């Protein structure tokens, strides 16, 4: 999925024309929505929890450089080796060199959105290392050679029958079965052998605790623990915003993360990794590496408004509740992070020139903000990205600012503002439109509007006229 060939309109049309996308997403997301609502059924408690979550993450951002330094020092003290990567290219190279050092030609991977952001799998394949996705959803889409379509549920777009077909086609010796337990068993058998023989495992990080140098991983399948504890080398990848101050900050943040994502009070597994295997310990990796990725995040951090998006916990609740995402699915966004949060961060990570159109994929209905556990003002951020797209040369802070600047649109809005500040002219134009009745020429926005709706009829007499004529007090 190359960014320079990205045609958002075509992608949306294709997605909307596919009945399977509508069906699979709506069904699955209704389930996730329902579970979240059932868990957070006390509005007051939820409000205070969200306020806490926002405050904790905002405080992290207020001292981000300092906390990252503290995290590095404490990790190193614990024996975790810390690597910094400014670009995804650097991060890929760091991972590859660690793998080469330990002689790994295969790596088992737990779920990591940062690795998707890096395009790590393709990079490793090109360099002779086999990446094996072990999260069930990631395993399915790796077989299908597709990117994830959701932040927490990567294979959300596939139903049971599609999974049955993929397993039968792609897993050597797998029989065709629609039985979910048998499908699970096929994945388990295949993956156990990989876990047993891999020389290195890779994971993401949900929270990295600066105070203790601890990496916290949340998962439901146990595969994450297999990746981080069975092979002799563990590589953890994180975006630099994942740092939190203290161990005490974890309970509210965890509750918000799992509750918002899947409606769970707590996930099945919570891994807290503080060091490689110590003297006398019977298991765990001999080496633990932490790769901290920037990739445009420090630019977001520098902007007092847009840095709000760095509070994101990657729970996916904004996706689950977005009326656009639910209809078009994740692939239509043509980027690693889809939905409202994707539309906010992707144009910042990949540039407005490449992905600025994503910011238009919202009616600004506010459903995303309503559920965001850390109260990111997503609609406000989308509006800001739209304005950045229209920025004048020399203005704007986001990469590719001004790339969507259109003279026609600018002139249209300026003319509109002129009309709106001249009420008599406005009234005259309305009267003219009313006289045309249904003979208004269907061009521009009206033409687009009438593709799916009948044209609105301008009233024979405007409200302003009637106010004057029917004796309403005016001034």
């Amino acid at each position: 999925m190359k960014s320079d060939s990205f045609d958002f309109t075509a992608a949306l049309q294709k997605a909307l024309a596919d009945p399977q996308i509508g069906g699979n997403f709506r069904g699955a997301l209704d389930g996730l929505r329902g579970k979240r609502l059932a868990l957070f059924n006390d509005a007051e408690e939820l409000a205070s929890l969200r306020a806490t979550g926002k405050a904790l993450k905002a405080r992290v951002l207020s001292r981000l450089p300092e906390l990252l330094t503290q995290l590095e020092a404490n990790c190193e003290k614990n024996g975790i080796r810390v690597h910094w990567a400014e670009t995804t290219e650097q991060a890929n190279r760091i991972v590859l060199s660690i793998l080469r050092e330990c002689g790994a030609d295969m790596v088992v991977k737990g779920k990591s959105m940062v690795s998707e952001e890096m395009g790590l799998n393709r990079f490793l394949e090109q360099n002779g290392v086999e990446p094996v996705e072990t999260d069930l959803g990631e395993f399915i889409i790796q077989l299908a050679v597709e990117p994830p379509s959701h932040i927490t549920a990567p294979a959300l777009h596939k139903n049971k029958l599609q999974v049955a077909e993929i397993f039968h086609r792609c897993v050597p010796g797998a029989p065709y079965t629609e039985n979910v337990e048998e499908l699970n068993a096929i994945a388990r058998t295949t993956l156990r052998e990989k876990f047993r023989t891999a020389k290195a495992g890779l994971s993401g990080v949900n929270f990295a605790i600066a105070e203790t140098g601890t990496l916290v991983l949340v998962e439901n399948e146990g595969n994450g623990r297999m990746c981080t504890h069975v092979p002799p080398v563990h590589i953890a990848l994180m975006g630099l915003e994942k740092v939190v101050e203290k161990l005490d900050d974890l309970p509210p943040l965890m509750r918000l993360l799992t509750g918002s994502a899947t409606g769970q009070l707590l996930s099945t597994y919570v891994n807290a990794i503080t060091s490689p295997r110590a003297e006398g310990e019977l298991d765990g990796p001999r080496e633990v590496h932490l790769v901290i990725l920037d990739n445009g995040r420090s630019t977001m951090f520098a902007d007092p408004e847009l840095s709000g998006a760095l509070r994101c916990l990657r729970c996916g609740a904004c996706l689950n509740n977005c009326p656009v995402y639910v209809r078009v699915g994740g692939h239509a966004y043509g980027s690693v992070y889809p939905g409202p949060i994707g539309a906010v961060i992707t144009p910042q990570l990949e540039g407005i020139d490449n992905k600025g159109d994503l910011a238009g994929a919202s009616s600004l209905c506010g459903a995303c903000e309503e559920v965001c556990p850390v109260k990111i003002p997503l609609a406000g951020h989308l509006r800001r990205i739209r304005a950045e797209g229209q920025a004048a040369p020399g203005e704007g802070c986001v990469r590719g600012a001004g790339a969507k600047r259109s003279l026609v649109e600018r002139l249209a809005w300026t003319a509109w503002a002129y009309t709106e500040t001249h009420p008599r002219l406005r009234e005259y134009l309305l009267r003219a439109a009313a006289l045309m009745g249904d003979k208004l020429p269907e061009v521009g926005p009206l033409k687009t509007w009438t593709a799916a709706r009948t044209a609105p009829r301008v009233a024979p007499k405007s409200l302003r006229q009637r106010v004057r004529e029917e004796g309403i007090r005016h001034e």
Partner: protein
Amino acid sequence: MNHPALSGPVRFFGTCLADAVFPDAGMAAMRILDHLGCSVVYPLEQGCCGQPAYNSGFPEQARTVAMQQVRAFRGEGPIVVPSGSCAGMLKFHYPRLFADHPQYFEVAAFSERVVEYFDFLVNVLDARFEDKGPPVRVTWHSSCHALRETGSTQAAKALLGKLCNVELVELSREFECCGFGGTFSVKRPEVSAAMARDKVEDIRATGAQVVLTADCGCLMNITGTARKLGYDITGMHLAEFIWGRINEK
């Protein structure tokens, strides 16, 4: 919402869509206020709230139009707005739009006075009506901003609940946007149309004779889509509906 004290006249912000397309809704809203004993004033210099430009990435033009409204509504006392979307813009987004501008305090003082129409009716005027109409089954579409910004949906529904011959059947996906979103409907027409179609189907499923709302934007989107699909769905602004119920012969 904070409720401005009721002293002197109530100024009415008609919204640009009521002005151009749904003047009956605007007139009904003002007549109801009059009926409830308010002195209503309609400032003639008013126009659009500026939201379309604001949401499209043109804050400069939005500010120009916003200042026009701030000037048109000079004075004191409440400014009532029969639209959750425009009320949200005037009340919550104007101060943001002017956060770093010298006009900030003038704008913020204006925003303080803004109140959504049904919120005003219920929570300031404690309105009650005698329902003279025949039994009818209706459904209610909440605009996203009435639901999530002004929080005025509850007031509108409470008022509807007081009309004794009106049966309200709730939409199964009331929380979901109808797909209008101002310029969104023409900038992302494919997605917008899909959302509008689903909303219309949801409305049909209730078996209601009328769909009511407190936002002319949603009303235009929903009824326009229904007509295009060939469905006979009557849509009405709640103010116009209530005015009809009070005056039924």
